[in-house]
């Protein structure tokens, strides 16, 4: 087996370009996904069946099917309908970039919603009763107590979800986007050095994952500082 380090160094800048797109995809869809996930989780945690039914079906569909199917449904599937093609949405749905972001956001929202729901239900009941006793309205309770407490509880689990998303973002390469994986594949088509290039791409992914883990640790220290506080002597 011939192994060429030279080819890795030569194409590393291009790979890093791809890594940048990966970061962009993960960051944008991660934030969008969170924005969708919070109301879904609140609805899902509701005791009224009529309210919790929609998020249930949503989560069931997005967690039960492969992300690749979801991406293809949006990217290729949307073009089947003339109504979509003629609508104002078409300039967005035509772009693989936006399709990837839509698919990733919807997907991560489903997983995130389930995590946040679990966190909401893990908040001690007494705290919510205390809010009621203090005369807080439902909205104020959610804003001031429930979401803040849930954020602290959900963070360790959510960091896992973001890591999984970083890995799934490689699927963007299947709809012609030049993210880290896509870039590696393009380079390989030119140089035919699959092992070297995929190895290099894998190492960049590992490095990104390591940085993410570190960031989440720091965030957790800040958000859950009561758990790390030293006892006053």
């Amino acid at each position: 087996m011939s192994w060429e380090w030279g080819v890795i160094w030569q194409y590393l800048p291009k790979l890093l370009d791809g890594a940048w797109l990966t970061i962009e995809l993960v960051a944008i869809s991660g934030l969008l996904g969170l924005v969708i996930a919070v109301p879904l989780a609140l609805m899902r945690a509701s005791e009224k069946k009529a309210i919790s039914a929609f998020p249930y079906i949503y989560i069931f569909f997005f967690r039960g099917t492969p992300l690749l199917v979801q991406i293809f449904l949006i990217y290729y599937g949307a073009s089947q309908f003339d109504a979509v093609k003629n609508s104002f949405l078409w300039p967005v749905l035509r772009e693989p970039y936006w399709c990837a972001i839509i698919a990733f956001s919807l997907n991560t929202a489903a997983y995130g919603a389930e995590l946040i729901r679990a966190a909401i239900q893990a908040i001690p009941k007494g705290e919510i009763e205390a809010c009621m006793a203090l005369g807080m309205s439902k909205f104020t309770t959610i804003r001031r107590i429930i979401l803040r407490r849930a954020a602290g509880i959900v963070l360790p689990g959510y960091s896992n979800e973001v890591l999984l998303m970083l890995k799934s973002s490689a699927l963007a390469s299947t709809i012609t986007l030049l993210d880290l994986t896509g870039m590696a594949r393009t380079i390989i088509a030119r140089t035919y050095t699959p092992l070297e290039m995929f190895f290099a791409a894998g190492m960049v992914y590992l490095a990104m994952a390591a940085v993410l883990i570190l960031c989440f640790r720091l965030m957790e220290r800040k958000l859950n500082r009561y758990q790390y506080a030293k006892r006053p002597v």
Partner: protein
Amino acid sequence: MDLHGYGELLLSGLWMTIKLALTSLFFGLIIGLSGAAAKLSSSRTARAIATTYTTVVRGIPELLLVLTLYFGGSQLLMFFASMFGYEEYIDVGQFAAAVAALSIAFGAYSTEVFRMAMQDVPKGQWESAQAMGMTPLQTFFRIILPQVWRLAIPGLGNLFQVLLKDTALVSVVGLDELMRQASVGAATTKSPFDFYLAAALLYLLLTVGTTLVTGLLERMSKPELRGGRT
């Protein structure tokens, strides 16, 4: 939803997906058990190898793994074969490359599940088995493994669902499984939405089936849930 008579194509793909998932499950479980044994062994080398394996595989995308083994599998295998003096060309088939990639990914995650399950078996059981005169191998297969199985089922069920969904990635390298067949149908009939939706529903069917089977296995492994004699 109009499949233009391509429904059978999808079903053949579904069958391939199931075969792929079950074969990878088999090898993945073996890798996972060995990985967990290595992680808990007293040998520092074995622990280091297992830790590197799980860290690396869990940190890189599954798609990258599939692509690497598909495009570089022959090269890799020939490299290892040449260490043993075999210099002929070896061709790694599509199915083999796919199974290898999926079981390596599954193995990394199941290593963790098995490790945790093994640690949950009280140490006293090893000691009493030893006191009864069992060899470590006997202890492992007779005492530990049946209990590990029980503790690991919920975790493994989740991982199998992930595995099922990951089989879709293999379509990227052209193996004729569900996703690939859906793409073929979509391209020939020009109705991609119908075909991908049909594929999505079939995947849902698989995941629901898995959930049911996992629940059943979990019940079987826990006599107390069946209201058995105590």
